[in-house]
Structure formats: structure tokens, C-alpha cells
């Protein structure tokens, strides 16, 4: 077995140093701070009291519940729609690049800007969405100002925003599939559905696995879209509060960094666990 070249360390050094200082150190510091209480200026040890506080805080559980629901609903739905749209563009549409650009546009637009526009679309009194719903005689819920609807609104918005990135990556993956597969399938008279499930889907599995991991992690860290959609707060009556919102609020506004860091550690563990599960699952499905 070959040993690593010593020189490699030199070339890795800048990255290692930066990662240590700006990624690993903050994680460790967060972990340490989660056992401390007091304001940032004078922290002192307090054992597990921060964890006790968050586990008995209904607001924390609501934040975690909202985050998990958001991740579990919006990610699969968005992925399914993206696969459908990508496949549609890839197989049936002529001016692919035009549509690709159109679908990619939201990704390069700032979430805050989109959020503000959607705030008006979703508005209960004069919003575009309710105008359309009314036109076809469907119920018109108050998307923004009804606490019971907040999470649904966030999920719809989340699905819409994640389409852009997903579609572009999937289009790339679709192009990489060897066209000979399809030619041979055609020779044997395979139907469109057969081709999709027997050729396209298996070929897409690695890409889907990648997107699933990225999307789930991003979904757990949701903050900006909530902030933009509800005008700077976590929904009416904090109904759409998420884990990151909880952390930010406890750290910056309430001034209890220890509690915020305890919540950070819990969120970190949840994300790690979910990612681990997902990798296991994808390995089984992909058979590799």
C-alpha cells in the first residue's frame, strides 16, 4: 500500500486551516456554548439546563415539528414535480434551452425579492391566487394571515423555489443517458412508460440521491423564505416558526446564546441522522 506523500499536506494546508477555523471550530464552540448560560459577555457553566429548557419549551417543539413537516412534504413533492417537468422538457419540447432558462430564472433571483412578490400573490384580500381560485369557485383561504395556513403556504412556496435548481441538474443528468439505450428499446418496441421506468429512472438514481440530500439539508435550514413571505416574522402568531428562526431569535433578540446553541446542536444531530438514513436508503434502492 502506498503511503500519502508528505508534500500533500502543504497543498492541503490552506483548506485545512480555513476549514478548521471557520467550520470545525464554530461547531465545537456551539457545542461548548450549549452548556453555558448568561449573555454573550459573561457566559458561565450551567450543565444541561439549556437542553432542559428547550425540551420543555413548546415553541421549540413547534419549530422542530414545522421544520420536519416542511422537509418531509416539500422535498419529495418538489422532486417529483421536477422529474416530471424535466422529463417533459427533455422528451417533448423543441426549444429546450428557452424553457431551461425560464425554469432556472427563479434560482438566480433573490429569495427575498420572490418572497415579497409572493406575499402579494398570496394576500387574502387582493391576492392574485385568491382571485383565480374565486374565478373557478374554489374556497379562498387566507394564505398569509391565518395561522393554520402558514405552513401550507410555506410548503407551496418552498416547492416552487426548489424546482429551478432541481430541473437544471436533472436536465444535465438526462442528457448524459446514452441515447443507444432508447434506440435499442425502440427496436424492441418498448412503450414510453416502459422506457421511462426501465431506462430513465435507474439512470437518474445517483442524481436524485444527490438532489434529495441537498434539498433535505436545505429544507432543514429554511429561514429566508419564511422571513420574506411573512414580512420579517415567522408567520402570524409565530405559526410558521422554524428551527433556524428559533435559534436566531434566542441568540440575537432574546439574548440567550446558550439556549440557541443547544437548539443548534439538536438540529445538527437531526440533520446528521436524516442524511445518514437517506444514504442507507439510496444505497438499497440504487443497489450499489
Amino acid at each position, binding site marked *: 500500500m502506498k503511503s500519502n506523500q508528505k508534500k500533500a499536506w502543504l497543498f492541503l*494546508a490552506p483548506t485545512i*486551516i480555513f476549514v478548521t477555523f471557520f467550520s470545525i471550530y464554530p461547531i465545537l464552540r456551539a457545542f461548548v456554548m450549549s452548556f453555558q448560560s448568561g449573555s454573550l459577555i459573561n457566559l458561565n457553566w450551567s450543565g444541561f439546563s439549556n437542553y432542559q429548557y428547550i425540551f420543555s419549551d413548546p*415553541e421549540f417543539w413547534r419549530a422542530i415539528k414545522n421544520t420536519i413537516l416542511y422537509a418531509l412534504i416539500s422535498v419529495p413533492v418538489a422532486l417529483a414535480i421536477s422529474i416530471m417537468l424535466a422529463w417533459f422538457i427533455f422528451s417533448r419540447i423543441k426549444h429546450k434551452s428557452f424553457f431551461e432558462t425560464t425554469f432556472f430564472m427563479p434560482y438566480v433571483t433573490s429569495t427575498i425579492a420572490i418572497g415579497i412578490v409572493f406575499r402579494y400573490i398570496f394576500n387574502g384580500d387582493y391576492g392574485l391566487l385568491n382571485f383565480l381560485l374565486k374565478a373557478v369557485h374554489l374556497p379562498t383561504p387566507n394564505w398569509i394571515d391565518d395561522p393554520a395556513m402558514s405552513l401550507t403556504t410555506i410548503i407551496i412556496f418552498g416547492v416552487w423555489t426548489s424546482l429551478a435548481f432541481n430541473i437544471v441538474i436533472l436536465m444535465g443528468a438526462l442528457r448524459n443517458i446514452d441515447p443507444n439505450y432508447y434506440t435499442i428499446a425502440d427496436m424492441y418496441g418498448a412503450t414510453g412508460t416502459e422506457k421511462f421506468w426501465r431506462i430513465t429512472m435507474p439512470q437518474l438514481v445517483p442524481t436524485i440521491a444527490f438532489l434529495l440530500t441537498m434539498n433535505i439539508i436545505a429544507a432543514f435550514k429554511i429561514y429566508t423564505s419564511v422571513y420574506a413571505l*411573512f414580512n420579517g416574522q415567522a408567520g402570524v402568531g*409565530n405559526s410558521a416558526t422554524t428551527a433556524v428562526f428559533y435559534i436566531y431569535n434566542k*441568540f440575537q433578540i432574546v439574548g440567550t446564546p446558550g439556549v440557541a446553541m443547544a437548539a443548534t446542536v439538536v438540529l445538527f444531530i437531526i440533520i446528521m441522522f436524516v442524511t445518514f438514513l437517506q444514504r442507507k436508503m439510496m444505497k438499497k434502492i440504487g443497489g450499489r
Partner: protein
Amino acid sequence: MKFSKKLTMAAVATLALVGTAACSKSGNSSSSSSEKIPSKITKKTTVVFWNAMPGVQGSTLKQLTNEFEKKNPKITVKLENQGAYNDLQAKINSTLQSPNNLPTITQAYPGWLWNAAQNKMLVNMTPYINNKNVGWGSAKASDIRTELLDGAKIKGTQYGIPFNKSIETLTYNKTMFKKYGIKKVPTTMEELKDVSETIYKKSNHKVVGAGFDSLSNYYTLGMKDEGVNFTDKINFSGSTSKKVLNFYADGIKKGYFRVAGSEHYLSGPFANEKVAMFVGTSAGEGFVKQGVGNKFTYDVAPRPGKYTMQQGTDIYMFNHASAEQKAAAFKYIKFLVSKSSQIKWANATGYIPVNTSAIESSEYKNNKSIKLPAKLEDAMKNLYSVPVAKNSNAAYNQLNSILQNIFAAAQKGQNTNSQINTGKQKFDAAWKQ
């Protein structure tokens, strides 16, 4: 091999440099409280001022600052806008742990700086106020209203000087009042309810009678009018509290009251004639005026009920600055709260002047471009502000989301009791963090 060694050396050297640069700033943080106040600024001095003043407010502050710099050529004031109040609060909170990066002075609510005061990071302003060269000689000579000065105290110490102060007022649609035959502008909450009901009925349920911008203020003042101060002793599900909450909730159930929701302010719906009157900050008059335009005439009246909220920030000074900087900063503060500056400030923004002589001056009273000045004296009879105590700011903020939940239930016609009980848990938890 030689090349790689050189590279390593270079890398190590760079790192060492970065390291020392980061540490070298933490030298002179020990400034004692007994230091002398310089009577004159002889060296070039820079004062950094963190603020959260947007639009007209920001540009007026800039004008005043330029004026001050012209009069005091040795002093430079750097205005650093930190965004909205929330952003400013967050920025102060996170910077408190590296005091050398704090500004010389900042706008703030006293509640934000509770911890900073506990850790002796703020400057006690009393010696500066009493100093004849930099200050006025005494608090009385400053002519700043006593209740405003008291509002800028933390645990009895004068850490802040009031600057941009506003009160809650009632803004109403005069044209609509005439149309529906309402002769008397409501002065009590009962009258507010009656007028709202009348308008709602007479407009065939098209126009909502009234609403309150700040739900936290609604609750705090509602309780104060019932004789209950804002402390951790408040029983949120008690009978007085329920009375205050259900007064608003009933109105929402029946349709004649509403809340601002995610729009945060009712000035929008007010300008679109969806609501006939609303209670909000006087500093919002500029927005009302702009929104209403020539569509109808509006007017401002004292807030119904006995008390009104005194809100808006004060200016606080941090301890890490040099003696010269502190003196220069105080001179600047003194300039900002002087009669002439306050008149300019109030006339441009809708904030209220902090000193009595400015309020009584004809330049302010006769200002026809906004409606507040003529009504101000009546509106300011009984002022109240959120008492500064541990977690009072957190509890006050929490009220907003608690009340939103209660009123959302009312909107759907549900009973508010279960939401009030949940609210009690959250309210008590906010006091105990």
C-alpha cells in the same frame, strides 16, 4: 524541496500576522468611570453613531449631523445605519462580546441594553448632563421632559438621553366620519367601540371601524388603563386580562375591529378606505399622508383611553471610548436634542420634540404640513412606557405573537379561552428566560 519549505514559511508567517492583527486590538479596554470630562475637544475626534433611521428620518439626521460638524470642525460623526430596529438590536447583542467593535453611541431601547448595563459597559450620563462645558449644568437646564428622561434610565441610572420619541395616536378618516354622521371623535375605548360598530353597520360591512397597529401596546395600555402595570406579576388569564383581550376579540368576531396582520401597519388599509381609524405611532404620519394623498381628509386625535405609549429610542454611550470621544459624543447628543434641532427633526418626521420649549414653540405648533403638532399637548397628558426590567423586553415582544393567535381564533369565530391559556404559558415563560 527548498521551494516547499519557503512556501511553508510564508504560510506560517501569514497566519501569524493574521493572528496578531486579530488580537492586537484588545489592548486598552480599561477605562475607569472616574476619568475627567475634557472641557474642550482639541484633537480630531471621531464619533461613531449606530442608528436605524430609514427614509426621511435618515436624511434629516444626516442634515443635522452636517450642521453639527460645521459648528465643530474637530469632531467627525460617522452615521452607520444598521437596518431596522430588530437588526440594530441583533447587531448590538452580538457585538457586546467584543467591546472594541462597538460604536461610540447608539440608538437603543433601554430594554435591549439591560445586560450591557449589568456588565458596566454603558456610560452614566449624569456627570455629563451636570457638566457645564459639555452638558447643560443640570437635568432641569436641559429642558428635556422628565418622563422621557426617566424612560431612558436602567435600574435608576441615567444611561440614555431621549432622542427620537413618538407616542401612539388615533388617526381617523374625517371624510368618512362626516359621511356616516359621526360628530365626536372617540376619547374612550367604549366610544371607540360604538363608533366602530356604527361605521361597520352603516357601510354595509364594507369598512372596518378600527384597529391597533401594535398588539403589544394594545395589551400593555389596556392593562394600564385598568390600573395594572406591566410586570411579571400580571396574571394573563385573570379576569382583568381577559376583559382587555376579549374587548378586542369580540370586535374582531363581530367584524368592526381588525388587526394589521402580516402588513404590520394599518396605514395601508386606512389609505385604501378599508378601515376608518387606527391607533398607531405618530412617527408613521408621513406614511399616512403619502398614502392618503387627495383621496380624503384625515386627522389625528389623542389615543382613546387615559394613557398613551411613549416609544422610540434613546441614545446610549458605550464605555470603551476615550474621554475625548465621550465628550465629543455628548456634545453631539446635546446638539441633537437642542430646541432648534428637535423642531427641525419633529417637523420633518412626525416624531415628537423631546424638550418642552420645542413643543410649545410656534414653529412647531403652527406646522400645517402634518396634523400632529396641533394635537400634541392633549395627546401627551399621560405617558407610559414599558418598564425596564429583566426580560420585560422579551415578554413585551412575545405579547405580539400571543395576541395574534388569540385574535386569529376570534376571527374564525372560535372561543378565545384555550388560546388565552396557551398565551399565559408563553407569557410567563418569556419572563423566566
